């Protein structure tokens, strides 16, 4: 499964677990408007580390604050490319 689909799948699952309703997942969706709250994102980042084996936020020198879903997916895609390289 692509990183993007993995992220979207996990977001759906976490939203269900937390009793939240997700907005339609488009690249330009502002993450804070997605329906997940900050705890939901914390869970998402932890589950992604479990699934993909990477946590680009902890690994980064500088903190990154992705605004949109597209930004968020890119952070993971480039982290995985670095991990493979």
């Amino acid at each position, binding site marked *: 499964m692509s990183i993007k689909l993995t992220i979207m799948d996990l977001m759906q699952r976490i939203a269900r*677990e*937390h009793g939240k309703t997700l907005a339609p997942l488009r690249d330009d969706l*502002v*993450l*804070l*408007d997605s329906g997940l709250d*900050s*705890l939901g*994102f*914390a*869970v998402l*980042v*932890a*589950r992604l*580390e*479990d699934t993909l084996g990477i*946590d680009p*936020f*902890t690994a*980064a020198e*500088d*903190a*990154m*604050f*992705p*605004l949109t879903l597209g930004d968020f997916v890119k952070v993971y895609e480039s982290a995985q490319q670095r991990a493979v390289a």
Partner: protein
Amino acid sequence: MKVRSNAPSLKGRIADAAPERFFWDRTARLGVNDLARGTSFGGRLGELAGRSVIVATSSQLTTALALIELDGVARRLTILPPDTAADHLGPLFACAEADAVVIDAGTLDHPALDLPVRVVCAPAIVPTEEHSLPYVPTEWVLLTSGTSGVPKMAAHSLASLIAPIGAGQSLDGTVVWGTFYDIRRYGGLQIFLRAIVGGASLVLSCAAEPIADHLARLGRSGVTHLSGTPSHWRRALMSPEIKQISPRYVRLSGEIADQAILDSLRATFPEAGIGHAYASTEAGVAFEVDDGRAGFPADFLDHDRDGVELKLVDGALCIRSPRTAGRYLGAQHALRDHDGFVDTGDMVERRGDRYVFAGRRGGIINVGGLKIHPEEIEAVINRHPQVRMSLVRPKQSPVTGAIVIADVVLKADCARAGGEQQQIKNDILQLCRDALPRHKVPAAISIVPVLDVGTTGKLARRYG
């Protein structure tokens, strides 16, 4: 209503308020001047005189109004944070010897708030005559952000609460404070008091208000000073509306500020002063660090600074100052040791010329300002029939703050197939979701072959 301007009460402190000062939440914007000459209690303030009053308001604006009017009138004020569990109310009321409650539209129908005197506080100010109620030094009781069980009740005075507020505050009415932090908790209450004592306006948040709307409102208010926990700031930095604000001063408190969040705020607000305060409900504000670096200068430990003394006991930070709470109401154990020091339970380590925070003693985890005992979560996980043992630990992330992770050892006879492991993880998470509040449910479960057990026979817990 006229109050002598030299009165020591909060209301006395706003008697000569500049006309442009305001309090603003999502629903109403009130002039501080109007409040100085009016009341939000519909003429019933006298019924609360000399009583032990529970402030059980749902909105922060009515909380602010109630606190201003009740200081110097009520014998004791106990401020209920918004997430107080209903089954804790009885013990809290008994401990506070409460005989009156202040409610607002949002808590009007709450069945547990049934004290002898019930007074409604409304976000509408009616002009009143000067009251002739005698001044009483009000005891301010704040609830600790408890772990499990009934929160502890830390008793402050107005003097201990405002002691950290410097004399250098501008009184020209041009400062607009904003707080992401609820004013019913110590960190937020500090900002409320700063606005009053410092002659400023105040923008309050509402629980139901989206962060984007709150930031836009802060922008419209011309906010100059803004405070929140590192978690609040991480969230704000993820909102495009962060561009709406340009504060002169950015403050962090309530959680340990790491270098990543300080650097991000510096990059976002290059012109602003950025300070992180170390404070707790019991210890008060111990110090503020404004050099943009995480931790605090090592020489803070050697010198009495503004009456605040720090010492380390077995690596834990202890604080003695006029800003600490005096005691716990109704508790068996003392809030201060026999020398007057408050043990914070925060472990620090020396790194060069700094001390940095190294987590909580006993492995207590702080998630968004809420303290969590790992043992409570481990007990739930260990109920799963296939779990041998578990260790719940914090994981730090610069973007999300601390989260809870569980390492789980399965019993030997359990199958190890990947699909089955995933099923067990899901079952454990479901067990946790059924038994625990949301912030205590582990963000992730990892199945591990073994856990370290220390020489004491206890699980080896690492700090932070």
